[in-house]
């Protein structure tokens, strides 16, 4: 428990930090305490004035926590988005294993997810296309050869 005022504490510390010869001794005599106490007060003041140490990384940003939030829904989303962008199943498998290690799904699982999401896309597009038709007054048409079949395009500029 502190028995000295803040003013005495700061004065004691100032005497130590001034580094002039005999200052700590003179100050101890004036304050009626030992030289050891004067030095202790200087350390306390110094600790108080130092900037706070950086907080340790929270558990939320640590790598294991990221892996923990990479649940199956997120993995599905990652796989479907990557395949929609044009990345192959094997590449998606490799990328997921970078994050998840051996816990990552294999390409057959990813292929099944993508197939399921693609089926959903077809149903959603059926609804959206009906809404688009009445808004389209200009169409750019093109065909592109992929081997067996010929996908062809209509795009509203």
């Amino acid at each position: 428990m502190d028995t000295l005022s803040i003013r005495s504490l700061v004065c004691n510390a100032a005497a130590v930090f001034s580094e002039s010869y005999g200052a700590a001794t003179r100050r101890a005599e004036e304050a009626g305490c030992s030289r050891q106490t004067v030095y202790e007060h200087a350390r306390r003041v110094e600790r108080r004035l130092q900037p706070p140490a950086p907080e340790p990384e929270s558990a939320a940003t640590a790598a294991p926590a990221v892996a923990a939030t990479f649940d199956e829904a997120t993995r599905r989303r990652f796989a479907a988005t990557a395949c929609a962008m044009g990345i192959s199943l094997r590449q998606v498998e490799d990328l997921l294993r970078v994050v998840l290690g051996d816990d990552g799904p294999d390409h057959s699982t990813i292929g099944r997810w993508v197939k399921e999401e693609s089926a959903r896309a077809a149903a959603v597009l059926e609804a959206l296309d009906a809404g688009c038709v009445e808004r389209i007054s200009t169409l750019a048409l093109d065909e592109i050869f992929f081997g067996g079949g010929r996908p062809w395009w209509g795009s509203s500029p």
Partner: protein
Amino acid sequence: MTAAFCVNAADHSAATWEKRLEPFDRLEFAVSDAAKGIAAAVSRTAAAHAATAPPLTHGLDLFHTTMEAHRVLARLWRKAETPWDRADELEAQAVDLRRRGIDSRGRNPAVAAARRRATAAFEDVERQEAAWRRIRAAFDLFGPDGRLNDRAWAEAEIAAALPELSGPEWRKVRDFLADRRGLNFLDRMHRRLEAAEPDPRRRDAMAWRWWGRHGRPDAPADPRIAPIRAVAWRRPLEGDERASYDRVAAVLRDTSRASSAVECMDSVLRMQQSRHRRMTQSMLDLKRLYWNCRPFRSGPRKAACPYQALGLPLPTFDFWELLRSDPDRLTQTLSAQANAL
């Protein structure tokens, strides 16, 4: 820029195309390359919709004309470099002989002749490139003076420049240019502008203002013109003038000459083609939904996705959320919005 449909079809016949175009009863303009199946389908659809829908016009995609012209020019430039390299080589040999103290005057005529051939080859390609640039300028919405381009002016410019592109390598470009559908976008633009602003003087003035604000006009030769232009182009408009300008600007913004949108999608599919053995219909659907929900990173539509740009009133434009949403509920939402309009 919305991918409206994408089908892995067994053929590309007119009947197949016609079936896909059938639902688009508000279609006014279709732009494509010179594919005969598409042309026939557009023609049949236009005839079928004639009684109930706005007239449908078919425009030739200028992207392919431009690409073909660039390909020819690149080949011509490569060809023109050969005599230039030969002239350099002969000249270097002559210089080397002189350096060694050997009389090289006998080689001078050969060097001069090679240089003449090289210069002639360069000038020939330059002439052809200038002719192509003149033709390319005829595809713009405005002439160099800021007046609205029209079919008469564009055809005159093309006819004036075409004799320079007489070589066999230009045959394909000449065929494209001879197709009247190439300038159909200009006819349509004028029709829509007349509907947007019936007063011809005001229409031209508003179009000129748009050209000044959105085109890249050259600095005027007479410096006194600059402040006049600044006032005409930057002065805030109010009331009728403002409304007239907005209508004219909407038409000019929405005038399409090339199917660059569909070429963007082609590049996405080719990326897929390089990594996958097959392209299934379900994969095409997934890609179409993803790219229709992906916001543009730059340009006038920055931060909006194609569905937003089209004005589709969706509860979300997020690809994943849309994929998880109930199709029946989406249909109801879109139907309710359509009825409210």
